[in-house]
């Protein structure tokens, strides 16, 4: 669909999800916060809008991070509906937070009714290696099972913060290029999609990034 490639900039809705206290809001704040702004006021409309370039294409991300409202369980459905891509964040220092994103993923797949909705798994607080509860290998095995890339990030040291968002963008862009995935999920040529997942992951591996899929 060449016409789409001519689109100068695309807008995507990304939802950041995870249990409370895993530092997902730090991740979001790090990502959208312009370092030169002295004071960060989250109450303005474009507090969570950001523009970035992914593989030479302009992408506008509208990020929905409902940090602080994890207790409003019933709202989750509403939040998830708006998302086209999901960042599932857990803390490597808490096994429970990994379990939490597993149920979040189920919910997403149910709500989007789409097995291959763009998802990135993020193990945050990677700087707290000494408190690690979730072995890296477990993260990777989850990643393999879900066919979703896994990153270990640290908002504090600003490690892999941008990378996980960019990865999500790539997935969304690719889906869009493949076309109509959302219109007819059941007719999607599943294998090719999964293959390209793998291809992409291998490419990333070659680039020397931290994300590795075993």
């Amino acid at each position: 669909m060449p016409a789409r490639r001519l689109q100068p900039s695309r807008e995507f809705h990304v939802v950041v999800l995870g249990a409370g206290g895993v530092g997902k809001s730090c991740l979001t704040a790090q990502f959208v916060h312009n370092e030169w702004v002295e004071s960060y006021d989250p109450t303005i409309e474009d507090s969570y809008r950001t523009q970035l370039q992914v593989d030479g294409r302009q992408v506008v991300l509208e990020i929905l991070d409902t940090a602080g409202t994890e207790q409003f369980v019933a709202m989750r459905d509403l939040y998830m509906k708006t998302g086209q891509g999901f960042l599932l964040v857990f803390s490597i220092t808490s096994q429970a937070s990994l379990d939490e994103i597993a149920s979040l993923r189920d919910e997403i797949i149910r709500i989007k009714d789409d097995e291959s909705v763009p998802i990135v798994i993020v193990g945050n607080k990677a700087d707290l290696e000494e408190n690690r509860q979730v072995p890296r290998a477990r993260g990777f095995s989850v990643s393999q099972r879900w066919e979703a890339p896994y990153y270990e990030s640290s908002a504090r040291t600003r490690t892999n913060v941008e990378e996980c968002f960019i990865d999500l963008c790539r997935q969304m862009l690719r889906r869009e290029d493949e076309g109509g995935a959302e219109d007819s999920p059941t007719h999607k040529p599943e294998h090719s999609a999964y293959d390209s997942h793998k291809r992409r992951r291998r490419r990333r591996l070659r680039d020397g990034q931290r994300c590795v899929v075993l």
Partner: protein
Amino acid sequence: MTPPQTPSSSQEDLSEDQGPPTFHNFLRAHYPFDNSALDDSNITMPLDRGDILMVHSIHTTGWADGTLLATGSRGWVPTNYCESYEPEEIRSLLHALLNFWDLLRSPSINDRELFSSQEYLRGMIAGIRHLLQRTNCLHKESSTVQRSDLLRRCRKDITSETSSLVRAARKMQELQDGTLNPPQDPNDICDEMVLKACQIVLKGVQLIDTLEEERRNRAPASVRVMDTVTEESVASSFDLSQAFPLPLNRRLSSFSRPPTRNESSPQGHRVSSSLSHRVSLAGPSSYTRPQFLVSERLSRSHDAFLSHIGSFIGRLSLQSQSCPELASAIKQCASSGSELLAVVDAVGTHSHSNCAALALARSILCERIHELVYAARDSLVQAASEEDLIMPNGNKELLMSATGCVRSAGDCIAKVRNAIERLGDFELVELDSSGLDMDLSILDAAARMRERKQSHAGLSETASAAESSGTAGSRTPGPRHAHTPSLDKPLPEIPAMELSQEANPSPPPSRPESQHSQGTSRLNLLPKLSTTLPSAATENPHDHEYHHSSRVDSMIASSAGSSATYLSRDSETSIVSQASTRATTPDHTLVPRPKPSVSELSATASSTLTEEVEEVESRLMEKTYVHELMFNKEGHVTGGSLPALVERLTTHEAAPDTVFLSTFYLTFRLFCTPTKLAEALIDRFDYVGDSPRMSGPVRLRVYNFFKGWLETHWRDETDREALVLILPFAEGRLSHVLPAATGRRLVELAKRVSSGTCLVPRLVSSMGKTNTAIAQHIASDTPLPPPIMSRSQQNALNAFKAGGNTPSILDFDPLELARQLTVKQMSIFSSIMPEELLAQKWMKNGGVETPHVKAMSSLTTGISNWVACTILHNEEIKKRAAVIKQWIKTANHCYELHNYDCLLAIMCTIQSTTISRLRKTWDLISTKRKDTLTPLQEVSDTSFNYKALRARLHDHVSPCLPFLGMYLTDLSFVEVGNPATRQMAHGSETGDQRASGLTVVNFDKHSLTAKIIGELQRFQIPYRLAEHADMQEWLTVQIDGVRESDKVNVQRENYRKSLALEPRETVPRTPLEQTPMPTPTTSRGDFFGWMTRERSQTNTPAPL
């Protein structure tokens, strides 16, 4: 208007920094810059080595829009001629100057509020204190100061400039109170203050330079130091002659390193071209170092004359005027005029050529003064025959002759300056005071006058004080005064160079000689810019030529270009300059404005001056932490160390800002411990004792803070530890110093607090009370709407209470349902305590510390789940549709009641996959009913950061129940998005964080937190709705019933039910599961907002 082309294009070798321009708040000229050859010389500024610039913005080309501290004039300068300037010693003062400038120039600040106290001066004073402390010059008697005359002089300059700043501030205070006589334009005083502040900084720079020089010369050079002393005094003498533009000389004074002289030739050239627009801010500081040089005397007497005439004109505009006052004003004018004439005569006798023109000008001036005096006498005589008052209508003539005087004086002075320039400056000690042969006693006779004022006394006094440096003046080579007023005039040249080099044997201490001469020789290479003159500038040259004393004009010219700049300290530049133009009034356009401070050159003024200097000395001795505060452009505190914040809370002059105070009370536990706070307060109480001037009010405020803390802001669980400090303090020191009752009161409060009783019920915190929303609170006599409850409904409830059947949701009126839900929610919402919302406490420990936030979120979730249950509970499609309809109606009522929390709770269920997939059920609901959902969906749309909801809540009048979750998200992001501390980096923001940068509390973060909490508290006002106890009970049972099963995943359970009720259709192509509305596309699109968005995004762009 864009700035001229970058000089670096032709001056590559000179440029210090080849990288992209970086922003520095202050620059120091490294090379002299001569802009006279430039076409746009009226928007650029020439520079001398050592000039200090305050930078407003830097254009990408490398031109900086800056204000020259020495003159206050503003224009474009090439940054490659400069280097960043911020030595550690003076950094805090420079920073204070920036704040001061922002404060005084910001149009968004309320003058009355700002100027009612001298609070805003404290940053400057603390900066000076810091500078003096760092340079070991804080005490007059310190060995550093005692060792060097030069340093002593520098220090004295600083204090006297400070005292005149304080005086100007006091004048402003009086003006605000309406007690200033004669009234002045506040803009004038502002200008004066800014100028003074700049002067103070310059003197500070001078001090540092001097120290530096001393450090270098320490061992060998007692002789050399003497040289510098004389040199310095010479230079400073020119400092004073500013009635006419003498940027060269002013500049010299800013920077005492003598060898600048070497560049006198290019300087002279530059002066001649830029003459007319350079005066601007130049304010007099004449009394500091009186001199005998004729140019100086001329300026001084001209200033005095103008100021007297000015205040005379000011008086005329008053409604009525008493005779003696008017007569005395006239006499002041006349005597200063006479003095001026005497100086003119002295020059005339010295002069050999051009006498005719000068003589003519002189005689015209003389005549004008005569006219004025006679006119005054006439009106005085006339008035005396009637009453002791001069009526305004007789003033016209006086006004005319007064303005005539001013004009002819200006004319005459120009001629005299011309003459002086040709002659060279010379020393003039004795004056023939009979310049104006006129007997002023006619005025006395006419108005039964008081004794004539001794306006000469000040002069002679200061004259003697300056005796020592006077001799130096005589040596001054004339041609240094190369202020040729016209462009075509050839420059006086070479001799100046030789002479000055002879006079100044010492090379510039901080720059190697070679570099220096390099700079000079490169003058030939100065950029020949061929930029066309920007249009904005071509409109302005007239202003530049004639609006002498108004610095505003140069601001217009320069700041107009700031839209094109990319590095700016002040995003409001253009607004600022616009706002400042109000300073220019037509009356003043033709003449240099009378300088207010000059009018105080009388004997009395100079005696108060010493007192003021004393006062400044004592103020400098006061311990303060004000330099540890950070402000934003609006003048709000954004950061500070704990002692500095405490000081801010307990200033002596004004009660603390209520927002600041309540923010502090609410959030202080986040950045310090109660013990630390108590320590800081007690310390404040103690150290202020050293400054008797303010110890009284400050101590009272310390007491008040303690009192407020104990009375309304006490958290026993955390604050108890501070009692150990507070109790002995209250019993001891406090009772000793303040009336015993205060101590007793505090002890009493402390004891009550420690007994565990919260003194004031804090249902609505004090922060909410300050808010205006309360005023709009519905009056309590508004009748409560009667509950909509039929007998059968009541019976159903009664039966339920008796243990019978549970009534269904369909049994009740949707409005009453909405009301009772609202009442239920609001009772929890209004009891949320502000401290529950701090530091994401509701996310920690399962919300133990935040019972109300937890209750609120679980109620909202409970309602959502209940809605789902009531719908899914029914096997029958028709019934399900009826329940959905009922909920749509209820949601609509919530919307009308402004209960957005409940609205969201209902909407998120109705829109959830579980419910929206029930296609067959939705088919039974009319399109009309579905349409009513559209506005509700819009408000409950969470995208774009709750844009729709925020828009509704903005300025919303209570009663209203906002969505709590939104505030929780905001607070979370303030918490994680803003660091806990800030680095005090005085000056450069981009520069390296030097170790000296102080780490202070990021108070801005807490202000944001408090702002959001205050926003939430605005809505903590109950609805005027009657609570229906039976229905409340029923609601509780219903919602709790759902909550019971919370342990299982209710959402998943409900989805399973939903699948059971209307199984997934097995047709392979059914994306419709998500889109349960098989209605026409338009209404379908409208129905679910998220779908509209998704579709438009994914599909519309594809022209398939």
